[in-house]
């Protein structure tokens, strides 16, 4: 037993010693490659000046003339023999990272396309048209109202119709109001809506179709499947955090809540991807399950209040 333990201790010692040797090896290798890269990229003129300086130091009594000479010869040899190849390699690597950036731009373009293609659900459209047809017979003024809401909604949703400058929170809220008014006409007492958005945030930049996707999700997966129906709250607020001013836009419903086994679908994945491309790590899509039930979805993006908003009007 004891012998075993000793052997084990010895083994551990040897292992840790080996680790130290390896670490030293790693560091030395790292330094060597750094030197090599530097040598490959440095200009000849600069290198010659460094050699001259080294020569001067080497010729003084403190200097080590032999080592200096060796270093100059070695670096000259390396530069001539391998410098060109290494330089080409490094340039190729740089080119690759440029290509990555281009890839990012391409993905941005693709995500924009996906946003543009974000479709009007045919089911929604046909049901709304059927509703208008019914209301024309029974309640013409209400039919005209729903009809107008449908036009507003389509104007903001159909890519061909989407007006320039749609990317403000105010425009996105208007469009959501139109959509929710239609849904309320269809679901009647099964849908209650409240929208609480401070005036000053309306002019803030906000990507298109994101709020819409959250609201459609809340209705489709939260409230429509719930027999009693429920309510949907839309709130916006600005806050100051370490990373600057942030704009939070929340969509809260008290529907049947989240199915943890359902895929997050095209909608949420699209929102997340676009946020990432537009804002990197500074934006977030947060989805929470409040203790009282339902779902809370929140988009947080950097907030740039439009200081000219007031004067422009």
């Amino acid at each position, binding site marked *: 037993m004891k012998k075993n333990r000793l052997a084990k201790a010895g083994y551990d010692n040897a292992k840790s010693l080996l680790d130290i040797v390896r670490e030293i090896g790693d560091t030395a290798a790292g330094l060597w490659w750094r030197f090599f890269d530097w040598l490959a990229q440095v200009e000849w003129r600069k290198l010659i000046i460094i050699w001259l300086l080294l020569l001067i130091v080497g010729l003084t009594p403190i200097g080590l003339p032999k080592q200096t000479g060796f270093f100059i010869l070695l670096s000259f040899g390396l530069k001539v023999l391998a410098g060109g190849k290494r330089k080409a390699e490094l340039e190729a690597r740089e080119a690759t990272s440029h290509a990555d950036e281009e890839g990012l731009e391409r993905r941005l373009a693709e995500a924009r396309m996906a946003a543009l293609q974000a479709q009007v659900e045919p089911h929604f459209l046909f049901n709304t048209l059927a509703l208008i047809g019914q209301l024309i017979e*029974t309640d013409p003024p209400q039919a005209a109202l729903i009809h107008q809401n449908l036009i507003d909604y389509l104007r903001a949703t159909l890519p061909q119709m989407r007006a320039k400058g749609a990317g403000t929170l105010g425009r996105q809220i208007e469009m959501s109001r139109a959509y929710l008014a239609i849904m309320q006409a269809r679901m009647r007492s099964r849908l209650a809506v409240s929208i609480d958005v401070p005036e000053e945030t309306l002019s803030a930049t906000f990507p298109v179709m994101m709020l819409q996707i959250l609201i459609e999700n809340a209705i489709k997966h939260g409230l429509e499947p719930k027999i009693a129906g429920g309510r949907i709250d839309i709130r916006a607020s600005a806050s100051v955090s370490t990373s600057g001013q942030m704009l939070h836009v929340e969509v809260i419903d008290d529907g049947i809540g989240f199915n943890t086994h359902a895929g997050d679908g095209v909608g949420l994945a699209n929102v*997340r991807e676009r946020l990432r491309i537009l804002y990197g790590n500074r934006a977030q899509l947060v989805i929470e399950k409040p203790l009282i039930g339902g779902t809370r979805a929140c988009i947080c993006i950097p907030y740039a209040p439009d200081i000219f908003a007031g004067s422009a009007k």
Partner: protein
Amino acid sequence: MNVNTPGGQRRATALIADDEEPMRQQLRSRLQEAWPGLEIVAEAANGIEAVALAGQHQPDIVFLDIRMPGMSGIEAARLLFNRCHLVFVTAYDQYAIEAFEQGALDYLLKPAGGERLRTTCARLQTLIGQRPSNIERQLTQLLSSQAKPAAKPEYLRWIQAVVGNNLRMISTREVLFFRADEKYTRVQTEQAEVLIRKTLKELADELDPDEFWRIHRSTLVRVDAIEGVTRDLRGRQMVKIRNFPEQLEVSRGHTHLFQQM
């Protein structure tokens, strides 16, 4: 139950199920025009109510909307198929339309009315008194099998984590990797790191094995987040994660995952 008119003739009865009240009103008034003799005995606002009311009133015909809360029209049809004639009413449902076109069971597109509704009513009038046909049953089965594609094992798609006072839902697509931390598991996303109570073993069983790979006794990594695999000087395979500084070690037992590399 058929209501007998004083003349001794049976009066056909029907039930309308649709979650949207305006649509029920519409169908009711259109039916009154197309078939004045039909008596609407009840209206249901969802599938569960439809089945219950159909049991109570025993109508000859049930008009069913397909998308309804609680229980869809298709699920309700499965419970009702042999007891009454079924007519689906839908605004837009390409699957249903395709299926119906193969069979004899009727369907109506919203807004239902005019000639189309009269044809349906005429067909139903000849069917009243007969037992619902077998084709309805077959079609109902066909529909329900289309509505629920072959039962694929359902994998966990959302991780629930307590962040502050809230229960945060994290899509598995956001996760870079999971790492065991005693009784807990650390969930690493690009933005944050959170602890959850589930053990790595439980997670590995619930997650899609094609989405997450186990590369170490204590590490599950999302395949899409892997940028590359390198060997360090000690010969260990190290997994590089996209947009994340730390590299993850692949243990000896799992090196086969990256064998081709």
